[in-house]
C-alpha cells in the first residue's frame, strides 16, 4: 500500500450548456501569448463530433496512449525504444496546424478607420499565422458546434463505429438529432502517455498533488508528448520552441482557489477535490482487459476514512489538510461512493483523473394528434421515464465507447441511478409517480432515498465550498528553505527564457 494524494476533477455533463466561458477564461489567462494562438488548454466539444484536433480519439492515426500487448503488459502505442530513436528528429504522427485550425482574429480597426463609402465597413477575418485576410475559414476550435455540419464531421466520430449502420442512419433523422457538450482539459493522468513519450525527461507529475507539468527549461521540442498524449492536450508553442499544456492553474491552487475554468463555469458543472489512491495498483489498473478498466480504476481510489489508508498517506508525507480535503471530496463521492462519474476513454490506459457524469439522454417521442407523447407503457409495462434508457435517442453503446471502454453494463448502471434520482425527485415535487414506481426505480438504480437525496444536493444545490474542496497547496512554503519564493515566481514560467540554456552547437 502506497497511498498518495491527487487533486482530481469531475465534470457533470448534464449541466454543461456549451457556453465556452471556461475556454475564454483559460485563453485570457494562459494562451494569449505569441505562439499559443491555436491552443485551447480548455476546449468544449460537441458530441457526436470529431473534436479538436480533428479526430483526436482516433489512435490509429495519432498513436496516442498505451496498448495492451499479447504478454498482457502495456506499451506506448507511439513507438518502442528503437522506433523512438529512429523517429527522434522526425515524429511522423503529429497533428498538423490544419488538424487543429488556422487561428484568426478580426480586422476591428477597419470598423473605425474605413473611408466613407456606400457600404457598411466590415471586420474581415485575419489569419494569425500569415497575417493575411482569410476568405475561407475552414475549421475552428469547435467546428462541430459552429457550422462544420454534421454530415461531414459528426458522422466521422469514432465512437459511432460500434453502432450498426441502421442506428447511425437514425441519428440523422430530423426527429432524432441529438448532441451534448464535452468540455476537456488535461486529465492529469496517473499513467500519462506524454510523460512516457518525452525523450528529454521534461514532463513530470508533481508528487504532492499529481499535476502534470512540462518543464520549460528542460523541454527540447521533440514533440513526442503531443503524439504520446491520446487526448492531444499538450501543444507546441512555435514562438518559444517549447511544449505547453494545462497546468490546472496551480498558482491559483497555491492559495486554495479553484482553476480559472472551474471558477468561471456558468453551469457550475465542475467539481475539484482530493482523491487518495494506491500507487502500487497503477500498473495493474492500466493493464487489465478492456471491460475491467473502469472497475480497476475505482479500485485504485481508497477510502479516506480507513485508518490504514490515513496512516499510509501520512507516512508518505501527505499533509493532514489534504487528508481532510479527501474526506470531504466531491470527486470521491461522484466517482467512488456513488459510482456515477466515469473516466473519459479509459481504453487509452492512461488512467485519467478527470471524471465525467454522463448526460441524461433525451428520449424518443412520438408525434400524436399534434402533441409529442413520451408517456405510455412500453412492452415491459414500465413507465416511460423508467425505461427511458431503452428509448434514448443516443444508443448507450456510444456512451460506453466514450466512458467505459465499451463496457455497456457500467454505463447502464450509472444511468439507472441517474434515472432513479430523477424519478425520486419528480415524485416529490410533481407527484406524478406512485410510491411503488419510485421504489422500483430505486431498486433498478441499486440506490436508496438517502443516497439519491445526497446526489441531488451535490448536483443541483452545491455551494462554492462544496464544489471546490482543496487545501491551499504548500509549494511556496516548501521551497522557502532553498530559494526566495518571490524571486522564483518572477523568474520562471512560460516565455521566461533567462534560465533557458542556449543551443551550444
Amino acid at each position: 500500500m502506497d497511498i498518495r494524494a491527487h487533486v482530481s476533477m469531475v465534470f457533470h455533463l448534464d449541466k454543461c450548456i456549451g457556453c465556452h466561458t471556461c475556454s475564454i477564461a483559460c485563453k485570457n489567462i494562459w494562451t494569449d501569448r505569441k505562439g499559443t494562438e491555436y491552443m485551447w488548454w480548455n476546449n468544449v466539444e460537441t458530441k457526436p463530433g470529431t473534436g479538436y484536433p480533428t479526430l483526436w480519439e482516433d489512435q490509429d492515426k495519432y498513436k496516442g496512449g498505451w496498448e495492451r500487448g499479447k504478454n498482457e503488459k502495456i506499451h506506448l502505442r507511439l513507438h518502442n525504444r528503437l522506433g523512438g530513436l529512429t523517429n527522434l528528429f522526425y515524429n511522423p504522427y503529429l497533428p498538423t496546424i490544419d488538424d487543429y485550425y488556422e487561428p484568426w482574429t478580426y480586422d476591428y480597426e477597419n470598423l473605425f478607420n474605413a473611408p466613407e463609402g456606400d457600404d457598411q465597413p466590415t471586420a474581415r477575418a485575419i489569419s494569425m499565422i500569415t497575417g493575411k485576410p482569410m476568405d475561407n475559414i475552414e475549421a475552428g476550435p469547435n467546428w462541430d458546434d459552429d457550422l462544420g455540419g454534421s454530415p461531414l464531421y459528426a458522422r466521422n466520430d469514432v465512437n459511432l463505429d460500434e453502432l450498426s449502420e441502421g442506428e447511425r442512419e437514425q441519428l440523422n433523422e430530423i426527429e432524432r438529432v441529438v448532441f451534448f457538450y464535452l468540455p476537456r482539459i488535461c486529465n492529469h493522468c496517473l499513467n500519462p502517455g506524454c510523460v512516457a513519450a518525452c525523450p528529454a525527461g521534461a514532463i513530470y507529475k508533481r508528487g504532492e498533488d499529481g499535476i502534470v507539468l512540462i518543464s520549460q527549461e528542460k523541454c527540447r521540442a521533440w514533440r513526442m508528448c503531443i503524439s504520446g498524449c491520446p487526448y492531444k492536450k499538450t501543444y507546441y508553442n512555435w514562438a518559444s520552441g517549447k511544449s505547453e499544456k494545462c497546468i490546472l492553474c496551480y498558482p491559483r491552487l497555491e492559495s486554495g482557489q479553484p482553476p480559472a475554468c472551474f471558477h468561471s463555469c456558468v453551469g457550475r458543472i465542475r467539481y475539484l477535490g482530493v482523491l487518495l489512491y494506491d500507487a502500487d495498483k497503477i500498473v495493474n489498473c492500466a493493464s487489465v482487459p478492456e471491460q475491467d478498466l473502469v472497475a480497476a480504476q475505482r479500485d485504485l481510489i481508497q477510502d479516506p476514512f480507513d485508518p490504514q489508508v490515513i496512516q499510509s498517506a501520512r507516512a508518505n508525507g501527505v499533509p493532514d489538510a489534504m487528508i481532510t480535503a479527501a474526506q470531504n471530496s466531491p470527486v470521491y463521492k461522484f466517482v467512488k461512493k456513488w459510482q456515477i462519474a466515469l473516466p473519459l476513454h479509459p481504453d487509452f490506459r492512461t488512467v485519467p483523473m478527470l471524471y465525467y457524469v454522463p448526460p441524461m439522454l433525451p428520449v424518443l417521442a412520438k408525434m400524436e394528434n399534434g402533441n409529442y407523447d413520451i408517456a405510455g407503457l412500453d412492452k415491459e409495462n414500465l413507465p416511460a421515464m423508467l425505461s427511458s434508457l431503452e428509448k434514448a435517442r443516443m444508443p448507450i453503446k456510444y456512451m460506453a465507447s466514450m466512458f467505459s471502454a465499451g463496457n455497456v453494463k457500467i454505463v447502464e448502471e450509472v444511468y439507472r441511478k441517474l434515472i432513479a434520482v430523477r424519478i425520486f425527485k419528480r415524485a416529490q415535487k410533481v407527484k406524478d409517480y406512485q410510491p411503488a414506481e419510485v421504489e422500483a426505480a430505486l431498486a433498478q438504480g441499486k440506490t436508496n432515498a438517502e443516497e439519491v437525496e445526497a446526489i441531488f444536493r451535490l448536483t443541483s444545490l452545491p455551494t462554492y465550498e462544496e464544489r471546490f474542496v482543496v487545501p491551499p497547496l504548500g509549494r511556496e512554503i516548501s521551497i522557502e528553505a532553498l530559494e526566495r519564493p518571490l524571486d522564483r515566481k518572477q523568474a520562471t514560467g512560460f516565455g521566461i527564457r533567462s534560465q533557458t540554456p542556449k543551443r551550444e552547437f
Partner: protein
Amino acid sequence: MVENVKPPSIPRYFLFLLTLTGILIFIASTFSVVAAMGPAQAADGATVFKEKCVGCHTIGGGKLVGPDLAGVTERRTKEWLTKWISAPDQMLAAGDPTATELFNTYNKIAMPNLQLTPDQVAAVIAYMGSGETTTASSAVALPPGDANAGRAYFVGDLHFANGGPHCMSCHSISGVGSLGGGNLGPDLTINGYSKYGAGLPAFLASPATVTMNAVWKNTPLTPQEQADLFAFLQEASVSQRAPDTLLLIAGLAILGAAALIGLAQLRWSRRLKGVRKPMIERTLAAKKR
C-alpha cells in the same frame, strides 16, 4: 526587482570548461610542435644537414630530389646561399633567375622553407664547404621491398614499428579503394613516385617538408618499411589519376543518397499526412457514390 536570480547550474559551466580545456590542449600541442622545430639548438652543421637536408640532397652522392651539393659553396655566393636556405619560397616568389631555373630543372618540386635559424643556416653552409661527403641515406642500403606490405602500411592494415600515422590519414593514392584517402596532404597518385622518382626513398627516410618533418622526426620509418612503401608508391603512383575515379565517387554518392532517401520513404511510409482534409475529401467522395 529580480536581484537574486539563480546562478546558472553547474552542468552548463561544465560543458563550457570542457570545451575550453580542449581548445587549450590543442593550442598547447600546436605550440610544442612549433617549439620542437624552431629553437636554436647547438648550431651543428652536420646535425642540421642530417635532419633537414638528406631527404633531398647528398654531398657528392649524386642527384636525389634536389641537386648534389658537392662544391655548391663555390658555384654560388655565400649571400645567395644564405638567402636561399633561409627562405627559398620567398626567393622563388620574387622570381630569382637561379632559383627559377633550379625549380624547372628539378621536376618543379619547390624547396620547402625549413624555417632554420640564421645560426643554423651559417652552420650548414660551413658544413657544405668543409669537404665532407654524404650518400643518399637510405637508397644504398634498402632491403628488397614488398609492394603488398607497402600497401598495407599505407592503408593502415599494418602498423609502423615506431608508431607513425599510416599514410592514408593524410594522403590519397590510386588503388586504395574508390573513396581514396585523406585530403590533408597532396594526392600521391600524381605527387608520389612519378614526381620524386629515385629521390623518393631519401625523402621517405627523412621528409623535408615542414609538416612531414614535424610528424616523422620522432617516429622514423624503419628501412624495411621505407622499402615496402617505396615499392608500393612505385607501383601505385601514376602521373595521372584514372579518369573514371571521379565518376565512380559521384556515382557512389548519388546511389548512396538515393538509397538513403528510399530507406527514409520506407521507414516513414505510414506518416500522418494530415487528418482533417483527407477526412472531408473521403466523406465527400463517399456521398457522391
